[in-house]
């Protein structure tokens, strides 16, 4: 307040007179007593800087008057993300869920409320007690009426990091105490590869440490990024990222060695390296790889000894490659016809791959497509033919773009975290896989539409359960799931939807009961720094008090468990700091056994708040070096112990959409496909300025929106044909949906492709109406909702063809954000 104002108050003020006036007014019954109490509020949070962490990295939060006012990256971060300031924005956003809320019709009529009004109906505030009583009543009702398979608790999403307030584990911990539930397996990032790779390499591969960057910098001669944009996507990590890939990327750039980016878009990575840009038609990568493989074979550039010693099944694959089995030799010319690349370029790639120490670093876009299993499998076959797997800087890698795969590993301990059950309950019959049933998670809409229908998955066949209730926490399926309009309709099959989150996501708006959770910055937690490097253990200290009535996930679920009569089983008698101390002490014990120095918990928590570990042997790690050195003593986890170019296990499954060796098959739709209706492929890359949909509601959005909407990259020729100019609002549409976006006309994307990054907040002009025009640009209004194949049933978030036109109708306002209306 102004100085003059303060002086006025001081001069004329009598406290007694002040309060007595208010009391007199209270005599009118309906005029509530004064909101305010006598006595100044005590400050609960100290001013100063608090070190904490996030999916974007570790940072210091500056606190003044109990308010979070600034963000500074942790000084140990070699490449802080430019998205950090958006975190503070999200915490203080007017879109925070502030109180427990219940959909009005649901409060009145319970589960008989019309599900069709979900998403448009009003919400009403209730007390925490009312809300939790209602949640428990529904959990019990559904369990009693429909049995354990009536509740879907396969909640997925990028919950916040932290070993204790892991909301998804906590929710399933509560669900396990309640009884049964339907769980989900897999994720939306690597659905296809994480299922096929264990058959091929014996590991998930997508979440494994890569040959480390110092080795790549010293040894790799040709670095190929195949559908990967590591400069963009390494900003984020599932735990607290160390950003250890960036010094490696920089050192490689400084070495001046060759980089090739194979991508429909000239990515930031491509620009950073000044790389050679190769742009095949999207979804034709298997054909390109086969063309390269055929060239290697025809020109005898492949490593026969490696194939003999380290792989099985090349003999069964070869007749397919040469066309002996199907009459179609997979020549470079054949591949050129499908991919649109020049046949000579394909041959040239083969020769250069063979001539150099080549690292084939692939992203996950390739496998988030129909028939996605084939892509990385074929990449492995290619790498096997090149024979460099296990050599320093050679082979292939499926995580150079994610969470700084290849960041050298430290010698530190592993920090445990809260579990979803197990030893928590004495005498309980824990299932080995939590849950009454499990579905591949991207099939959730298919499950809702087809209860009782058989589905195939990785050699098993099961029936979809009939679920009537879901509890979603730490995720936003109305962002990450495909074919939004199909989903909006299927969502009506739920009788009861509970969503627990910190902000009004699209999913929260399609819920019946909405519970406000704290953000990471309103509670204490602990986490590791570096998904692959495990470089440090970080105290994620509370920055500010919880806003409004937000509560910690742990406390919410503990209260639900209490209502179920399972309070002790849930909490094990431990509160927040007891758990954090226990996790730390478990790590400390490992450290002591390994003779690694680590302070005791109190010193760690009260002093630095971070303990860093040394990188020693981690600096020279070469993936599969052990296997290469001795394939008999260090076999792979596959049935043969070798790389499986041909999988007998997959052969036994007999799937028409996933044969026993990598195969080119036409995806359901693609650019230039034989039965494809629309002329443009929609590239739905991971965002540069968001984590999927996270931070879309913050100031970071100013960095990228065009005409206030998600940008749509379109090639100069495609734009000219359609009369589209840079900055125009365009409508991108197909039979599944339609979105508005802001045109960016550029030669940085190949003709025939447009790019709308995934994660734009769903903003239907007519909520709940099938086919509603999305005003901001949610790419998943356009994508295909089907399994990659019967093998993995992964999502196809990169499979979408559409057309684009300049939008000339009445422009619907973007309503989804918190931009002040007077701005």
């Amino acid at each position, binding site marked *: 307040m102004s100085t003059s104002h303060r002086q006025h108050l001081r001069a004329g003020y009598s406290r007694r007179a002040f309060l007595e006036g208010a009391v007199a007014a209270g005599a009118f019954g309906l005029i509530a007593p004064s*909101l305010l109490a006598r006595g100044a509020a005590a400050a609960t949070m100290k001013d100063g800087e608090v070190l904490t962490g996030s999916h974007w990295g570790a940072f210091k939060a500056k606190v003044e008057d109990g308010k979070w006012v600034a963000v500074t990256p942790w000084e140990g971060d070699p490449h802080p993300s430019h998205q950090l300031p958006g975190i503070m924005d999200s915490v203080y956003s*007017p879109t925070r869920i502030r109180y427990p809320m219940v959909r009005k019709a649901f409060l009145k009529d319970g589960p008989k409320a019309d599900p069709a009004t979900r998403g448009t109906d*009003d919400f009403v505030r209730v007390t925490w007690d009312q809300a939790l009583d209602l949640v428990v009543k529904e959990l019990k009702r559904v369990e009693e009426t429909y049995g354990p398979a009536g509740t879907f608790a396969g909640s997925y999403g990028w919950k916040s990091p932290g070993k204790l307030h892991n909301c998804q584990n906590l929710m399933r911990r509560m669900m396990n105490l309640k009884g049964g539930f339907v769980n989900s397996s897999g994720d939306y990032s690597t659905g296809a590869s994480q299922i096929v790779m264990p058959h091929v390499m014996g590991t998930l591969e997508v979440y494994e440490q890569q040959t480390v960057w110092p080795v790549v910098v010293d040894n790799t001669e040709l670095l190929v990024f195949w559908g990967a944009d590591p400069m963009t996507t390494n900003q984020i990590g599932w735990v607290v990222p160390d950003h250890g890939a960036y010094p490696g990327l920089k050192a490689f750039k400084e070495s001046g060695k060759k980089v090739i980016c194979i991508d429909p878009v000239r990515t930031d990575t491509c620009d950073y390296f000044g790389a050679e840009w190769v742009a095949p038609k999207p979804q034709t990568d298997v054909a390109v790889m086969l063309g390269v493989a055929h060239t290697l074979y025809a020109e005898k550039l492949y490593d026969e000894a490696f194939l003999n010693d380290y792989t099985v099944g090349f003999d069964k694959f070869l007749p397919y490659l040469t066309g002996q089995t199907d009459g179609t030799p997979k020549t470079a010319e054949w591949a050129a016809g499908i991919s649109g690349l020049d046949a000579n370029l394909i041959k040239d790639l083969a020769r250069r791959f063979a001539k150099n120490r080549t690292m084939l670093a692939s992203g996950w876009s390739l496998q988030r497509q129909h028939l996605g299993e084939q892509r990385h499998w074929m990449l492995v076959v290619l790498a096997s033919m090149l024979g460099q797997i296990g050599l320093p800087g050679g082979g292939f890698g499926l995580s150079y773009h994610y969470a700084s795969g290849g960041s050298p590993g430290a010698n530190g301990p592993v920090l445990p975290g809260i579990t979803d059950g197990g030893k928590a309950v004495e005498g309980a019959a824990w299932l080995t896989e939590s849950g009454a049933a499990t579905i591949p998670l991207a099939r959730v809409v298919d499950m809702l539409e087809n209860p009782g229908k058989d589905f195939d998955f990785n050699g098993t066949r099961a029936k979809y359960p009939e679920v009537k209730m879901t509890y979603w926490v730490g995720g936003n399926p109305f962002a990450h799931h495909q074919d939004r309009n199909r989903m909006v309709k299927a969502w009506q099959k739920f009788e009861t939807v509970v969503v627990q989150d910190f902000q009004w996501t699209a999913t929260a708006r399609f819920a019946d009961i909405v519970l406000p959770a704290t953000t990471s910055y309103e509670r204490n937690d602990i986490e590791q720094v570096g998904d692959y490097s495990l470089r440090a253990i970080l105290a994620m200290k509370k920055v500010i008090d919880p806003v409004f009535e937000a509560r910690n996930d742990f406390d919410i679920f503990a209260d639900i468990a209490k209502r179920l009569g399972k309070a002790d089983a849930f909490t094990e008698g431990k509160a927040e700091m007891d758990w954090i101390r226990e996790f730390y002490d478990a790590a400390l014990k490992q450290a002591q056994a390994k003779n690694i120095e680590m302070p005791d918990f109190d010193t760690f928590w009260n002093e630095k708040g971070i303990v860093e570990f040394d990188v020693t042997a981690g600096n020279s790690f070469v993936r599969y070096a052990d296997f290469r050195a001795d394939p008999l003593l260090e076999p792979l986890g596959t049935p043969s112990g070798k790389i499986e170019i041909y999988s007998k296990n997959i052969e036994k499954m007999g799937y028409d959409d996933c044969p026993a060796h990598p195969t080119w098959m036409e995806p359901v739709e693609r650019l230039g496909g034989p039965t494809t209706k629309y002329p443009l492929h929609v590239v739905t890359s991971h965002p540069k300025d968001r984590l999927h949909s996270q931070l879309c509601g913050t100031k970071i959005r100013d960095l990228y929106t065009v005409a206030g909407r998600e940008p749509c990259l379109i090639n100069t020729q495609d734009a000219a044909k359609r009369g589209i100019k840079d900055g125009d609002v365009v409508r991108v549409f197909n039979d599944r949906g339609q979105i508005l976006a802001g045109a960016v006309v550029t030669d940085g994307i190949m003709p025939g492709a447009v790019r709308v990054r995934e994660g734009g907040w769903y903003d239907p002009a007519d909520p709940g109406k099938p086919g509603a025009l999305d005003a901001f640009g949610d790419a998943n209004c356009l994508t295909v909702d089907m399994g990659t194949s019967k093998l993995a049933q992964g999502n196809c978030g990169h499979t979408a063809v559409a057309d684009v036109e300049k939008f000339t109708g009445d422009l619907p306002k973007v309503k989804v954000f918190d931009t002040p209306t007077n701005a």
Partner: protein
Amino acid sequence: MTHIAPLADARVRAYRWLAGLFARELTAREIGGYRAVQGQALLMDLARSTPALAGGVEALRAALRAETPDTELALDLAGDYARLFLGVARRQAAPPFASAYLSERGLLFQEATRRMENVLRYHDLSIPDDFKEPADHIAVELTVMAELAGRGAVTDNPAARRLRAEQADFLDIHLLTWLPDFARDCAQFDSRGVYGALATATHDFITDDRTRLAA
């Protein structure tokens, strides 16, 4: 001049009544109370003693006249309240915080909140634990005005002038900076019109009050 003193009780009543309406949803019991004779008398009195409130009072009375049961009307109005004030409808709403209107990006808990916290601290007041709103919530600001206005009738002397000046200052700094935008948003986004009319009435009343304080 001195004509402000006789109005003091009515002003306090008006500020407190409005604060209560914006602080929380009306309960079914309160709706029953307003529908009873005493409640109707209170509304008439408010409209008579503070004419700027007449529009807001009439909108509320119109809603009360409908044959909706108390519980149902409470639910309907609670839905309106949540959409406008509790963040459900994102920004198709009227966030009841100075910060939402005065900070660069419409965030909460910004400078305006801290300034109101200073005001409360200066007056040795605090927000009790059961009201989980920041200090720049409109209900808190209206309550502070009620308390400033209710310090009693001091007649024409330098102290009275100072009291008027401090109230005028408070309105200028903490309320009139954002109230017009808030009232506009309420009117624009409220479907039933009760809260929209009440916000407009709040704006009208405070504009009048500010003029009187300057007189």
